């Protein structure tokens, strides 16, 4: 493009007012003194030309060059094929397991030990009849409530069988919190019980241990990270809506953790064990089938 320079008076004025007083061919004079030579200026113009409306590089190429450019760019995307590995059955489950593990790791890192789950007013609590009964085997595994004890083992100073009176002698906490199911529903309920942390300290548990393993009368089992067990809202729950737990809701004792999903809230508790090692097939009934182990909220 040569339409700018000839109309621009500046090169003539600034470039050579005295040394070349009478330019015979003003069009040539206008361009030449402006820069060291015509080549860079031409390249500059060419460069400006080789841009699309939004500054995209533009090239004029032969079909052979174009194919080479396309091939080069195509090769840069080849690593993306790695994502397609999930389509291969042999690779699929290991990849998804890693994804789940990473999500659990992130969830554990996000967990605030002192961050409380929201609590609600009594008006916001769902009526008792609308609090769902959820169980994996039977609603009533036939616990003998008179003879029931909680067996405590593992890294504790006073292992043994504990009676309900002993658990109820600990300070009682009542809270209106949201119960969230992995399926997607949620319900606000009223729960009462002893803090798991109070109980563990009372039996002399090593609270620096990593996990609490839980087994249930109906054969269900769970394992919880110690940070969540020690959370102030984590209860050994023996009451709902001001009454002793009914059989459908896990009488006589269940876990109640507003920082965990519903499937972690084991019912009909039989034993708890403080440990640093989890058996890979005893992480939890649903977890061993593929649910998130952390299951945190």
């Amino acid at each position: 493009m040569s339409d700018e320079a000839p109309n621009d008076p500046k090169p003539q004025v600034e470039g050579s007012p005295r040394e070349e007083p009478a330019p015979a061919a003003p069009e040539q004079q206008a361009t030449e003194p402006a820069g060291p030579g015509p080549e860079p200026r031409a390249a500059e113009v060419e460069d400006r030309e080789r841009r699309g409306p939004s500054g995209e590089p533009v090239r004029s190429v032969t079909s052979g060059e174009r194919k080479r450019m396309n091939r080069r760019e195509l090769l840069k995307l080849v690593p993306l094929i790695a994502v397609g590995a999930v389509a291969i059955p042999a690779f699929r489950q290991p990849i998804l397991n890693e994804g789940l593990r990473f999500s659990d790791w992130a969830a554990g890192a996000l967990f605030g030990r002192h961050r409380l789950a929201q609590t609600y007013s009594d008006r916001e609590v769902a009526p008792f009849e609308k609090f769902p009964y959820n169980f994996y085997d039977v609603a009533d595994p036939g616990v003998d409530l008179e003879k029931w004890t909680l067996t405590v083992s593992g890294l504790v100073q006073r292992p043994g069988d504990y009676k309900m009176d002993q658990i109820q002698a600990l300070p009682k906490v009542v809270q209106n919190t949201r119960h969230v199911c992995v399926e997607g529903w949620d319900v606000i309920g009223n729960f009462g019980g002893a803090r798991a942390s109070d109980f563990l300290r009372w039996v002399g548990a090593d609270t620096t241990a990593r996990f609490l393993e839980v087994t249930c009368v109906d054969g269900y089992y769970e394992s919880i990270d110690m940070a969540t067990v020690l959370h102030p809202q984590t209860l050994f729950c023996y009451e709902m809506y001001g009454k002793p737990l009914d059989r459908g809701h896990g009488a006589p004792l269940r876990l109640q953790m507003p920082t965990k999903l519903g499937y972690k809230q084991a019912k009909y508790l039989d034993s708890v064990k403080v440990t640093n090692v989890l058996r890979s097939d005893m992480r939890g009934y649903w977890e061993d089938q593929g649910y998130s182990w952390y299951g945190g909220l």
Partner: protein
Amino acid sequence: MATTVAPVKSPAETTTVVYEHPLVVRIAHWLNAVALLVMIGSGLRIFLAFPSFGPKVPQQNFFVLPPRPLTIGGWLGGALQWHFTFMWIFVGSGLLYAIYQVVTGHWRQVLFMPRDIKGVWPMARHYFLFGPKPSVDEAYNPLQKLAYTSTLFFGVVSTLTGMVMFKPVQFWWLAWPMGGYHFARGWHFFAMCGFLAFIPGHLLMVAIHGWNNFYSMITGWKREPEYLE
């Protein structure tokens, strides 16, 4: 445009090519496309575990349920594994794209601005009612900007609502502007519907504009684009 290019046609066999899509954009596009399909497929399977936005007792199912063959994961636990794996790819590719667009200033080509409003109807009339083609001197026309910007919006909404559903206790402050935890699920579903509305239109446009246009999202180079003629 003032910078109209006269393609060099002198050696008969040369063609003009434009580097339309930088490598980062192409990587982000294809990662996001795969992740989005997996997120929708597995999300629909998760939804089937409780296909309702109401209470559990009594349960009132949504008026339309996704057909199982279109879902991913087989069961709730499997679908959650897909969802929890690909959400990182979905968000990661989205962030990669967003950061790149901000750093390069390319966001100006894509982001729908108030000044684009007046151009939407003429463009829609051209596409859907065979009206005259409005002249466009930008990389994307107003209707394209609207469509692409809405997907960015759906991406942000689905990510934030997803965070609230994933960790409602930790992200309680995010749940509040959505109307609380319970509403987050509804907004998450809404964002998916937005993507489902975008995808067919996007694919139709790609089909209409042909192989040359499609190929440019793979290699970056577009042959003889119409805006340079």
